[in-house]
């Protein structure tokens, strides 16, 4: 059966790179991590408006209790991830190093909110209706756990006149090092399947496809076996290629449809969700458990115990590294996320949030940037760009502050996958410049709309 799958391995047609995959923790089962003494829960963990805190300093909170309410449609609730007392509500450093509002809770005991099903029973029957599901996932603070943290209820309610036909489940995990989704697929297969069923019901679609890269053969086998019981769910094995986990590339790789410029997958009749999200949906709908924890890969060559942990949101990253054997001496960079798209941290004293898929501890020699040389016009960046952009040109335009021309060259279409900077033989900081241009143009666009 696997041979048959390999014969028709598909992928996105243009660009992409093949970084060495370094999946150090692929064989390590998910470990439950006891909650730390204090958690710092930022109120802005999702794409969209930050939630508004509704607790006060000194309040007693239980696990799963709402501590910040969604501010409008494009926002989700934030929940307490430990039980205890709210120490303070203040601006704390987030992954970018800038300070954002957060609720700091002192952990005391393990008291759950009433109604949360903590038993190990597996529930397969879906009781709620589609509209109830969408309401429930917003209440439970669900956001895309792949990294972009787009609020789930927004994706589940397509704009008028557009109907989803296919649900695509992203089990690609194309970033090197990360194994959180891989382990989740192996260990929580049935739950993920029910989660997909729930998502299908909410979206009213008949078909769901799970895309998994061919370097996770055990996960492909496991989920294919489970999928036999669900005749609408199929598993597709995909070629190993970065950035296959990006939404637009995944849609093209799996069903051959191209998402239009500036459009969303719903424009071509599909919705993409991460396997982690599918599991969180199961927990929310079947077990009444809000999004308070996620699987995080902690990995690094010189780290003593690279592994996958089930972590409460708000746990300081330094605590995670401590559990994984402490910070090695030759550490050069600590990265939140994958090595391609992740962010190097200013300090490890920042919390795990909904979008944190991994913590990487890279050695100094491995993570050091090479000196920048002049462009030799080899056009490798052009041939490796999955979106067909010309990164060298965009970098030059941004460098000369020619933002309008850069906008015409579709700079805003860039998905920031970093393939261009990865392949550049002159080690030019292509992505940094493009990011700068994008943020500048985004600001300009905002100001244009203003009266």
């Amino acid at each position, binding site marked *: 059966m696997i041979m048959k799958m390999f014969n028709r391995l598909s992928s996105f047609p243009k660009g992409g790179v093949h970084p060495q995959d370094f999946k150090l923790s692929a064989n390590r089962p998910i470990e439950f991590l006891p909650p730390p003494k204090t958690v710092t829960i930022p109120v802005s963990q999702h794409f969209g408006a930050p939630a508004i805190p509704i607790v006060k300093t000194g309040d007693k909170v239980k696990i799963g209790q709402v501590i910040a309410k969604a501010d409008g449609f494009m926002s989700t609730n934030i929940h307490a991830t430990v039980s205890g007392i709210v120490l303070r509500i203040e601006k704390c450093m987030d992954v*970018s*190093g*800038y*300070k954002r509002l957060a609720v700091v809770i002192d952990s005391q005991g393990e008291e759950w909110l009433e109604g949360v099903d903590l038993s190990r029973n597996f529930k397969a029957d879906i009781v709620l209706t589609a509209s109830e599901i969408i309401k429930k996932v917003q209440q439970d603070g669900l956001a895309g756990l792949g990294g972009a943290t787009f609020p789930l209820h927004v994706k589940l309610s397509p704009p008028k006149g557009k109907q989803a036909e296919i649900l695509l489940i992203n089990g690609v995990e194309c970033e090197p090092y990360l194994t959180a989704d891989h382990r989740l697929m192996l260990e929580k297969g049935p739950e993920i399947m029910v989660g997909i069923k729930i998502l299908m019901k909410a979206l009213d679609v008949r078909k769901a496809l799970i895309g998994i890269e061919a370097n996770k053969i055990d996960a492909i086998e496991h989920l294919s076996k489970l999928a036999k019981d669900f005749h609408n769910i199929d598993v597709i094995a995909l070629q190993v290629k970065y950035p296959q986990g990006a939404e637009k590339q995944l849609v093209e790789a799996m069903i051959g449809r191209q998402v239009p410029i500036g459009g969303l997958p719903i424009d071509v009749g599909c919705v993409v969700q991460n396997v982690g999200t599918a599991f969180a949906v199961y927990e929310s709908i079947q077990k009444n458990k809000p999004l308070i924890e996620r699987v995080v890969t902690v990995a690094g060559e010189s780290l003593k115990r690279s592994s996958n942990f089930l972590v409460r949101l708000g746990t300081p990253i330094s605590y995670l590294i401590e559990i994984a054997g402490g910070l090695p001496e030759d550490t050069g960079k600590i990265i939140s996320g994958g090595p391609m798209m992740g*962010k*190097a941290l*200013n*300090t490890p004293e920042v919390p795990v949030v909904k979008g944190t898929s991994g913590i990487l501890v890279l050695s100094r020699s491995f993570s*050091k*940037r090479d000196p*920048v040389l002049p462009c030799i016009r080899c056009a490798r960046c052009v041939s490796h760009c999955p979106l067909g952009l010309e990164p060298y040109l965009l970098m030059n335009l941004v460098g000369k502050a020619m933002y309008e021309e850069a906008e015409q060259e579709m700079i805003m279409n860039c998905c920031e996958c970093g393939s261009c900077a990865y392949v550049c033989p002159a080690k030019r*900081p292509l992505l*940094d*410049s493009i*990011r*700068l241009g994008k*943020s500048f143009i985004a600001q300009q666009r905002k100001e244009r709309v203003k009266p």
Partner: protein
Amino acid sequence: MMYTVIVSVFLLSLTGILSGVILYFVAKKFQISEDPRIDAVEAVLPGVNCGGCGYPGCRKFAEACVLAKNLDNLFCPVGGNKGMIEVSKILGLDVAEKEPKVAVVRCNGSLKNRPRINEYDGEAQCKIVHNLYTGETGCSYGCLGFADCVRACKFDAITINKETLLPVVDEKKCVACGACVKACPRHLIELRYQGKDNQRVFVSCSNPEKGSIARKNCSAACIGCGKCFKACAFDAIKIGENLAYIDFKKCTLCRKCVSQCPTGAIHEVNFKLASDNQVQETKVNV
């Protein structure tokens, strides 16, 4: 043979004369009369095209001057008052004298005051670093030290001090064109009045965080304690967002605030060193 030469010479001369006549009439018909004063004004302008006046070059500024009814809103910072008087002489307009300005850097996070907590090895441009993260120090408001202002300055007036890693403005060279103000992604550079005898007092910090946090990251940070505010008799100091700001229009350069600042965030420029007695006196008075 001879015939060919004569014909071609004749034809070419004829075409030449005809085109000349046509060009003459076209030039007459479509002649654009330009105010000769534009050239005259441009001649007295410095001609550096720095954009400090707000126009895209000296020529455009000259055109604007000629078209304007008064020169109140037009000022060339490079030529200064002298230059504007010459412009006004050509145009026969009055010009009010403006107090000259100079760029000041409102950050004092030198290596000693603000230790580096991480190392950045990417592209050395302030705007890129600012876009990526908070910078090498704990202060997310202070100078990044990658010299975007130095590159923006057309007059070589800013250099990075190698010991402090902070930009230093050469007051003699600075013309207050404002190019560095625009170049700084953290908005640390401000154009302030040069002041009497080139003396100035200003708060050299831009961090609006709470005092304790700001102080943790930088020992020379303004902590918003309000001591300078109480010491000022001229209502020139405002405290907002944990940060003091001295209004250079109201400041009389009495310098009472300088000795009050517990972190040394208030800077005095070009004053003679205050004797110990004076400092003690002010302390007793307050």
